[in-house]
């Protein structure tokens, strides 16, 4: 009964992520198909990797004839930012079963991280519900990428502003995080640095770089200026 409850509550938190993944998944499926992958291969990549931006990059590198080593190294760089997210989540999962934590780790994405963290911080959340969020998002991603591979070109682009779903979700999740002056200052520094770094550095390492510097400056601000 309690398990069922966790599934229901987890699912009610996961749907904005699923909605946001659909257009991106379709787009990925279409591009991967154009790069020569079959729907089966597309689905397998989504199962094995489950990381949107690096999958897009991998497909474009495949189309350019890049080597497997180059693609794997790029994937590593692109997804290294999850090291920070899993560290922030680990604080809430002290003493939890390591097998279940390993399964949970598989589903840590930018989106599931942000949704789960907001709930964990509220205190009414647990590993079960977090797992439901991750796995529902995972299922939506796998399904939408495969469907995109079969015929995503028939779905009109920009229908109902669905391209904006993830941005809107991030806006609201950022609002949840702004619970005091130190968070607002950290977020402003991170935003400014991310814009500057994204213009200067190719790829998406600007996310991790801006976040680490901003959190450090935010901590210094808190320790020495208040």
């Amino acid at each position, binding site marked *: 009964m309690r398990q069922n409850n966790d599934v229901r509550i987890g699912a009610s938190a996961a749907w904005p992520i699923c909605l946001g993944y659909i257009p991106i998944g379709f787009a990925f499926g279409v591009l991967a198909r154009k790069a020569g992958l079959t729907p089966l291969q597309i689905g397998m990549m989504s199962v094995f990797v489950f990381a949107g931006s690096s999958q897009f990059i991998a497909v474009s590198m495949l189309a350019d004839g890049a080597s497997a080593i180059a693609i794997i190294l790029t994937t590593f760089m692109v997804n290294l930012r999850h090291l920070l997210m899993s560290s922030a989540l680990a604080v809430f999962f002290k003493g939890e079963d390591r097998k279940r934590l390993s399964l949970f780790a*598989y589903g840590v994405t930018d989106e599931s991280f942000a949704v789960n963290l907001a709930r964990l911080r509220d205190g009414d959340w647990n590993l079960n519900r977090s797992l439901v969020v991750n796995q529902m998002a995972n299922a939506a991603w796998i399904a939408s990428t495969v469907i995109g591979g079969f015929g995503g070109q028939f779905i009109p682009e920009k229908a109902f502003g669905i391209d904006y779903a993830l941005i809107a979700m991030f*806006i609201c999740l950022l609002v949840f995080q702004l619970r005091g002056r130190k968070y607002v200052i950290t977020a402003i520094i991170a935003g400014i640095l991310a*814009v500057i770094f994204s213009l200067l550095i190719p790829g998406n390492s600007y996310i991790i770089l801006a976040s680490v510097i901003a959190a450090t400056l935010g901590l210094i601000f808190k320790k020495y200026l208040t």
Partner: protein
Amino acid sequence: MKDYLILIAGMGFVTFLPRWFPLFFLSKREIPKLLIEWLDLIPAAILSALLIPALVVGGEPKIMAFKPELLASIPTFLFALKTKSLGGTVIVGMALYWLIGKGLLPFFGL
């Protein structure tokens, strides 16, 4: 197909590793207080670092630009601040972005 399997297995491994390492090892030990305070600031930093460039940076090569994403983000942000509703914010944000794309907002004097 064999080469492809090796490729996605490698991609999967290097993606899983940074997601798994802190959860597996940090969840079992005392985390220093300073690190907890630092990690406490990380979500606000990451969300902002993910979001802000998506609003004001575009093109290839990348340049700063005025984008409809930015225009839609201001009322979306205010809605999120007022309601604290994730689902509601997603729906309102999508609707605003869609209306801006349709060029309908000037009709409402916005």
